């Protein structure tokens, strides 16, 4: 199994965090992983993209050029992602912010209202975690069966109070697809 994913959004949406956590979870499940970020110099609002690969085998190029799945967190990222996903691949769209339909018809388009679901839990900042739940469910690349202990080892103690809402966000994402 090799799942190559391309994640794109704007700075501040948690694109980089989503990518990092995705590969961290994969690593904890015994997979080979690689994460390569690309972001602008801006603190917020610039482009944020990440190439992530999880695999049962040695990973060749860390750069994802033809992803099996792509995550579109905002409107600007749709054309970039739609352009590169392999035929028959998954296009996961944050339908809270992306209001246009993808043009390609050979993709499996999954719409997740990430911002709305995150707001319902109480914090729009965990929209990225909603998307991660959806990504895990549709690709099956990461099981996420030990999510809570893994989150505890990923985040420093001072952030552990946010874990329940993050868990709820991942679950909401899984349930939404």
């Amino acid at each position, binding site marked *: 199994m090799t799942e190559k994913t391309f994640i794109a959004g704007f700075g501040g949406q948690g694109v980089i965090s989503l990518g*990092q956590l995705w590969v961290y979870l994969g690593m904890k499940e015994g997979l080979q*992983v*690689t*994460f390569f970020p690309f972001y602008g110099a801006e603190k917020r609002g610039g482009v944020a993209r990440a190439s992530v690969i999880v695999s049962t085998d040695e*990973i*060749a*190029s*860390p*750069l994802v*050029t033809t992803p099996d799945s792509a995550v579109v967190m905002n409107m600007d990222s749709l054309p970039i992602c739609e352009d590169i996903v392999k035929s028959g691949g998954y296009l996961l769209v944050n339908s809270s912010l992306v209001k246009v339909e993808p043009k390609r018809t050979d993709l499996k388009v999954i719409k997740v209202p990430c911002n709305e679901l995150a707001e319902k839990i109480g914090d729009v900042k965990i929209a990225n975690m909603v998307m991660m739940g959806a990504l895990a469910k549709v690709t099956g690349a990461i099981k996420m069966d030990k999510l809570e202990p893994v989150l505890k080892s990923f985040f420093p103690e001072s952030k552990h109070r946010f874990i329940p809402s993050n868990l709820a966000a991942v679950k909401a994402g899984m349930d939404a697809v």
Partner: protein
Amino acid sequence: MAEDIRLMKGNEAIAEAAIRAGCRAYFGYPITPQNELTAYMARHMLDRKRTFIQAESEVSAINMVYGAAAAGARSMTSSSSPGVSLKQEGISYICGADLPAVIVNVARSGPGLGGISPGQADYFQSTRGGGHGDYYHFVLAPKSVQEAADLTYEAFDLSDEWRIPAMILADGLIGQMMEGVVLPAERDLSKLPKRSWAVGNQAKQGRPINHVSSINLVPLELEASVRARFERYAKIKETLVRFEETQVEDADLVIVAYGTSARVSLGALQEARKAGLKVGLFRPITLWPFPEKRLAELAGKGKRFLAVEMSMGQMVEDVRLAVNGKAPVDFYGRCGGVIPTEDEVLAAARKILGK
């Protein structure tokens, strides 16, 4: 107990491996894409009561390394391409003074200030002795975060043993990406090799003064010391060459690539094999000493070669020297911070094989 696997950036893994190898003095100056390395050292060297100095420039950082190395400390500096250019004078002096030191280049694209995206166009500078004079030093090229940590750790030992600096030539992608890494064990500092040649602390030891210098104004003496150094180089070339081969034995075409280019080429190889094309991969791990003997051997077996680099073609010259006209050597490269894709490398291989 075995260390746990950790998710780290290449830059951070290099820094932590250096600390564990017993780096006692680090001198740096910020530059993208190696900043996490300096930042990590700032946090963790001081925690351990070791020396961390952010110098006022790269020139000053390498000369601080020169001083600390002369005093017998395991010392290190890191930078990225334009910064490493500035360090070349110091590296030449350190080589001329026969001192150990570790220099990390997380290379970006050039020339000049160039860009901050990954590049491999510092191959000539790294492997040919980028400063003035007759000298070489170790150049180790990692392909992953794990190897970046392992080679950095080893670089300190190699450098100590041979009294020759060791350079880690990574690129911005190796530095910036995150992968799982199992870090090497903490080195017992009391068991590091003795440095009878080091300066300082002379009165206490009651020994004669040690001079560490690269100057010698007597031509015959200077020639003898350069020749002695070249005898060490010859021994290194005999014993310390390292490379990795993937499906080379039955290959019609052998891709030669290091670092990130080797990762991309491995992907191209896997696709080629699926299509029934006999493509292999030869990955030099030591860029100096370069694995020239093995390449010559492969050329003798009728292989042809394709060098893949993130440059306009630098390592390809070493491949051609090694092969010495016995086999065709082609080149594919991207530059300016562009990373070649697996499809592009596969297309280049197909074109050569006519399939």
